[in-house]
């Protein structure tokens, strides 16, 4: 799969502008992941895990700074991009602990999720590094962060084995299935989003024009400035409208 995507990755990372934007985006994802880990450290009662989560969070914060700094260096003078693009789906960076409600998570599930997220990130970053021969600084950044992700991957697995003892394998499979389910939900909601946008846009152009005309006529009759409110309006009714 990775080798199939390689030409696509090459295309994505070839443009300095897109590279800058992706790195800035990764910085945000890493910072968000760091905050999730801080939250995990605040909630756990296991002192070893608390210290490990804090150390991991510090790494994520450092990665965020590194990505941001390189992104800004690459993007000097470029205007910021508005909104997401299709490429954000194809080269996601680290997903961190997205969609995870830290306070509702069992410790074992959380560690399994961290392990899988870090593994995916290490794999992705290695792929990105392999197509960045033309940009040694960004390449070394991915190599450096990728090594950290491998540490994260290993410590989370070791701790999962400690916390869940015999059940770690089952938890990992469960986490894999959850990631798959979440990926499906993301895809399904994206498709639903596109479909509803198309339908609403059709309605906008087919159904709304006569009402738009009326609304525009009504707007012309409105006076600028204050609207005087009726004396009885102290909203005693408590209604929705």
């Amino acid at each position: 799969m990775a080798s199939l995507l390689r030409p696509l990755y090459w295309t994505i990372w070839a443009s300095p502008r897109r590279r800058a934007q992706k790195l800035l985006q990764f910085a945000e994802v890493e910072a968000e992941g760091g905050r999730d880990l801080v939250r995990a450290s605040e909630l756990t009662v296991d002192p070893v895990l608390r210290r490990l989560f804090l150390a991991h969070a510090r790494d994520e914060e450092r990665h965020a700074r590194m990505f941001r700094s390189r992104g800004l260096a690459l993007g000097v003078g470029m205007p910021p991009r508005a909104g997401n693009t299709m490429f954000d789906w194809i080269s996601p960076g680290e997903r961190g602990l997205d969609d995870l409600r830290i306070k509702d998570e069992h410790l074992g599930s959380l560690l399994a999720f961290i392990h899988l997220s870090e593994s995916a990130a290490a794999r992705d970053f290695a792929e990105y590094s392999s197509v960045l021969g033309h940009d040694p600084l960004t390449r070394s950044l991915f190599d450096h962060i990728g090594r950290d992700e491998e540490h994260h991957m290993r410590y989370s697995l070791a701790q999962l084995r400690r916390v869940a003892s015999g059940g770690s394998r089952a938890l990992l499979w469960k986490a894999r299935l959850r990631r798959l389910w979440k990926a499906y939900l993301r895809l399904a909601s994206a498709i639903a989003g596109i479909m509803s946008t198309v339908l609403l846009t059709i309605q906008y152009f087919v159904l709304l024009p006569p009402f738009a005309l009326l609304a525009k006529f009504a707007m012309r009759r409105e006076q600028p400035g204050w609207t005087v409110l009726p004396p009885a309006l102290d909203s005693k009714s408590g209604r929705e409208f």
Partner: protein
Amino acid sequence: MKILGISAHYHDAAAALVIDGLPVAAVQEERFSRAKNDAAFPMAAIEWCLDQAGLEPEQLDAVVFYEQPALKFDRILTSSLRSFPHSWRSFPKAMKNMLGEKLWIRGIIASQLGVPGRKVLFSGHHMSHAAASFLTAPCGEAAILTADGVGEWATMTIGAGQKGKDHATSIKLIRELRFPHSLGLFYSAFTAFLGFAVNEGEYKVMGLAAYGVPNRVDDVYQVIQRTADGALELDLRYFDFHSRAETSFSKRFTDLFGPPRNPNEPIDLASQDGRRFVDIAASAQRVLEDILVDIAQALHRETGFPDLCLGGGVALNGVANARLLAESGFERVSVPPAPGDAGCALGAALFADRIHFGQPHRDVPDHPFWGPGIEPADLLRLAREDDIPVEEVDEDALLSDIADALWQGAIVGWMDGALEFGPRALGHRSLLAAPHDAALRDRLNRDIKYREEFRPFAPVVTLEHAHRFFELAPGAERLGRFMSGVFPVRREWRERLAAVTHVDGTARVQVLDPPMAPRLARLLDLYGQRSGIPVLLNTSFNLAGEPIVNTVAEGYSTFRRSGIDLMVAGSICVRKGGQRHEALSEAAE
């Protein structure tokens, strides 16, 4: 009566519980979810409020939502129709946004809380702001001015309120300004233009304005004009927010003011572009102030009341508030500790109690501490587990030690009692430091708050000493109570208060009435005995991008991750040095 107020779904969701006319709990959802400005339905905040009072949802007499969703939907739909066909991109987004959840509030509240739909009431958005401000202010009658981006249709209202012990409390909103003409959205457009996040970065524009010269006021008055009746009107050719979701200003706006700032690039005051940005910030700020002052002067002439109650997000602009106090003719200006949408949860509950149900007025305790308390023993346990030096000492010795540490340049994380309701840390979840050293301010910015260097820090001083250090106009103590006004630092003290004096010689001072936070007041006295200046730098206990800490564990993790030297929770004190770190590489073995 037991009434729960809720604000949600736009920014800064919150819940507040009022029992027999008095608040018993109020808290923002972000303090539990740890997502800054969390707008989600505030289930955790609601649960905490109910737990605090030992209530089950079915025991509530009413649940009040802070605005009228159907009326809001009417505004969004009508705006899309009026800007047809330019609104074709924003229309699907707006419809999905409203129809997905925001329109069905009664059903959501009923199903989430298990209360019958008939118990769910609604208050107007600006009525909630007005109630939050007027019904909590220590005055019997007052003029009311609310201003924010937009509620349902209203963007600004003026009115008057009267309190009566005999079921006669009233809030009369006399006039409203309607969307899209909005002072809040005007300021937000400049916030976006200057590269800051809308609904969050407005205070940065205010801070930046002090560096500039208001030499673009005439240009600003091209985009916002006064109407004959004293209101205002935006020239919509310069704005995009009414027809597009992505941007708030149009190409004509950038033709007038030049290219917008790239949010990723710092503001370099030495560059031509940097000067342009600060001058634009100063000009937009000046126009906002001039318009507010003018409207308030007219309101004072109309009502004749000595008190003005301000509400809505615009009331967070401390520079404008101070000018209102000085120039509007009102003797006192009251801004509640949570004037934004979060405060509407409390406003809506008080509105229902006093006005919808006609209950007699009761004076609301004049403090912001309506949130969860702390468990100091947690700090003892956490620190011991991490081999951090920790001590439990008696009150006098503890405060004395902290005053010594502050005088020696330490940055102190201070947790005491119940959490503040609203965006300001007012002495229960604060970072404290000496106010004299600009290097300390830079250290705070660099190692702890990680924020732009142009943003000032605020001082806290007791009522007794406030006039010695700050030029406080008559009535300024009221604004200073919740850090809602910006006032000049007396010239002779500016150098010795360098860490809290902004570039224009002002400070957003908290004037502390000792009974409101007695331990902090004592600490200020002790610090004053050592330094000769009973003033401290007081900023919120959080890191960049995070909400203010709530629990001791959150304070502790903030302490561990930043350059804070010392943390205090109740009578427990921990210091940096010698703590255990866990190496990830070793843990992986």
